[in-house]
């Protein structure tokens, strides 16, 4: 019997990612990880790509993880969990260890997932390993000090897409990784955000129980890179959802479903203006980039509504 998703019950469960780690105040990643792990009753085994989550939860000589956890390199969390999962199932089949319904999860940031880890991720889900890959997506390489990734939105300032007098931040649009993973036609793909915690936790449960490879892309703000106050993390994540910049949906066995529809679709500007990384876009000569971002959000949102049968 699964634990009910009610805060009072969930609060009683011991954290699988314990307090005392050194992720920044207001970091979205730790919120995502704690919520997701709290949703799972079964034992979990975790592979973690190089990144903030890996570095800041395992600072010498401590670990914040109360579950088996392994870090390999930047590009290969999906391959690493592949080996662990396959070995576990082999040992179970041979009768050498009992079946304990272990859930295998890989965590990677957007750099380790959208960029360097994409090949490993694609291979692992194509092979059909029974595991959940979670991209905690803060839209840049935050661990090395805020460099652009292919998840970084158009116009955002990062240290390798600096906003200057001639070039106004990142020149390219972000990649739609959730769509790419859906195109792998695996049992479960979802996009989520920690501001909709119940939605996030329900999706986590579906993902680990789907009987095959699952992928979740979870928006996790980084206040250092996005440039906002540390107490605005959840609020800004929700603004991304309410502007339809980050729609919440799932693709279960090929069925697309919108899991949250904003009462009122806010202009993307409402989300942009709260973040220092977009500040330069509000200069008159750069306003057209806000229009471009809005057009991109609208186009992707309309496409998603069609896929979800909402129009």
């Amino acid at each position: 019997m699964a634990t009910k998703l009610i805060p009072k019950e969930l609060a009683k469960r011991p954290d699988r990612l314990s307090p005392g780690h050194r992720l920044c105040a207001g970091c979205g990643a730790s919120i995502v990880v704690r919520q997701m792990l709290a949703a799972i009753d079964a034992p979990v085994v975790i592979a973690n790509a190089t990144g903030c989550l890996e570095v800041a939860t395992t600072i010498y000589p401590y670990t914040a993880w109360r579950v088996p956890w392994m870090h390999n390199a930047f590009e290969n969390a999906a391959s690493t969990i592949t080996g662990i999962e396959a070995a576990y199932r082999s040992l179970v089949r041979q009768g050498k260890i009992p079946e304990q319904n272990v859930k295998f999860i890989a965590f990677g940031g957007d750099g380790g997932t959208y960029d360097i880890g994409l090949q490993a991720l694609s291979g692992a889900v194509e092979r059909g390993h029974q595991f959940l890959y979670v991209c905690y997506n803060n839209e840049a390489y935050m661990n090395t000090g805020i460099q652009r990734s292919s998840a970084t939105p158009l116009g955002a300032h990062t240290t390798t897409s600096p906003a200057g007098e001639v070039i106004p931040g990142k020149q390219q649009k972000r990649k739609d990784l959730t769509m790419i993973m859906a195109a792998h036609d695996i049992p479960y793909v979802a996009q989520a955000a920690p501001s909709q915690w119940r939605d996030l936790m329900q999706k986590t449960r579906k993902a680990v129980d789907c009987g095959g490879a699952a992928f979740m892309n979870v928006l996790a703000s980084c206040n250092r890179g996005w440039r906002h106050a540390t107490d605005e993390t959840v609020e800004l994540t929700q603004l991304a959802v309410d502007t339809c910049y980050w729609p919440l949906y799932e693709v279960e066995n090929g069925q697309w479903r919108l899991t949250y529809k904003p009462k009122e679709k806010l202009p993307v500007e409402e989300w942009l203006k709260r973040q220092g990384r977009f500040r330069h876009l509000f200069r008159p000569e750069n306003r057209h980039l806000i229009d471009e971002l809005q057009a991109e959000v609208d186009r992707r949102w309309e496409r998603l509504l069609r896929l979800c049968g909402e129009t």
Partner: protein
Amino acid sequence: MNTSIHSVLMQGDEACAEGAIAAGCRFFAGYPITPATEIAELLARRLPQVGGVFIQMEDEIASLAAVIGASVGGAKAMTATSGPGLSLMQEHIGYAAMAEIPCVIVDVQRLGPATGRPTSPAQGDVMAARWGSHGDYPIIVLSPSSVREVFDLTVKAFNFAEQYRTPVILLMDEVIGHMRERVTLPPPDAIERTERAVTTVPPEWYKPYENFPADVPPLLPFGEGYRYHITGLHHDERGYPTEQVDEIRPWLDRIFRKIERNLSDILLYEENGVEDAETLVIAYGVTARVARHAVEMSRERGRKVGFLKLQTLWPFPEEVVEHAAARLHRIVVPELNMGQLAREVERVAGRHKVHRINRADGEIMQPSEIVAVIEGWTV
């Protein structure tokens, strides 16, 4: 007084970026990694200002592939990384050697293996820089020990790459990369730049891998009317794949010869007090700074200690070391690894003469560690 010369406080990674631009580099493709990220960050700002291109790639494999492509397109091109990235680049380093594509790979070494300690210095990539890719190929590896040297050797790295049509690795380390020093950079017109050789032969005569008479046939950029073939397969003088021993062998001989014949140009080092020394200290990179201090301390106490600072690690300066070693019985080789360059010194000088000092725990050496060995041996 030349007003264009002024002193600035500069970081090693910054000097590398500025040295690249001064050398004529107009293309950078790379991937974030500590402690080399600053080079990418600076070039992301600087290259567009001088009409160059900065591209952040999806990983290090792609980074060096893009650099090779840019070089074939005619640009002076570079990437910068650290140990884990160097490991990923190894296939393309061999490719660049095979296809003889000029390119510069900066490795700001951190403690390895694997993720190691990203913010700690090490000199553990000396052998990986030389032998990391599979197969037989020569390569040039330079190692700076100050911020000014980072600038100078970055320029040299480009010059060597263009002069000899070869990949060149600039082997920095975390301390040299992150350290800030007051430096006076040379005025732009005082910087020697080597440009890629050109040819006047008509396209139908052009052979990109011609073995004679010169050892470095000109590499013409794609897109200028010279149609030719580049491949990682063994190839004949036209660049077409070959399985003929009589074509593979002359090529292999030539790519080694083009380096060996030019050692007097390529081998960079500084000797100090070697003539009357009883003990010689050989060091490079950050350890050369520590070693110099140790040598001075020992000399103040009356020891006759010579100092050889290597800036070119590969090709290994065999004759320089051999010459010095012939008159000496003690050679001390301190380095931040478990004994990588010391193996070369031992090979040339004889194992019994060489005393290694190894440290690979993320800390730099103390002068006292080197003094103790120098003086322990001379007592």
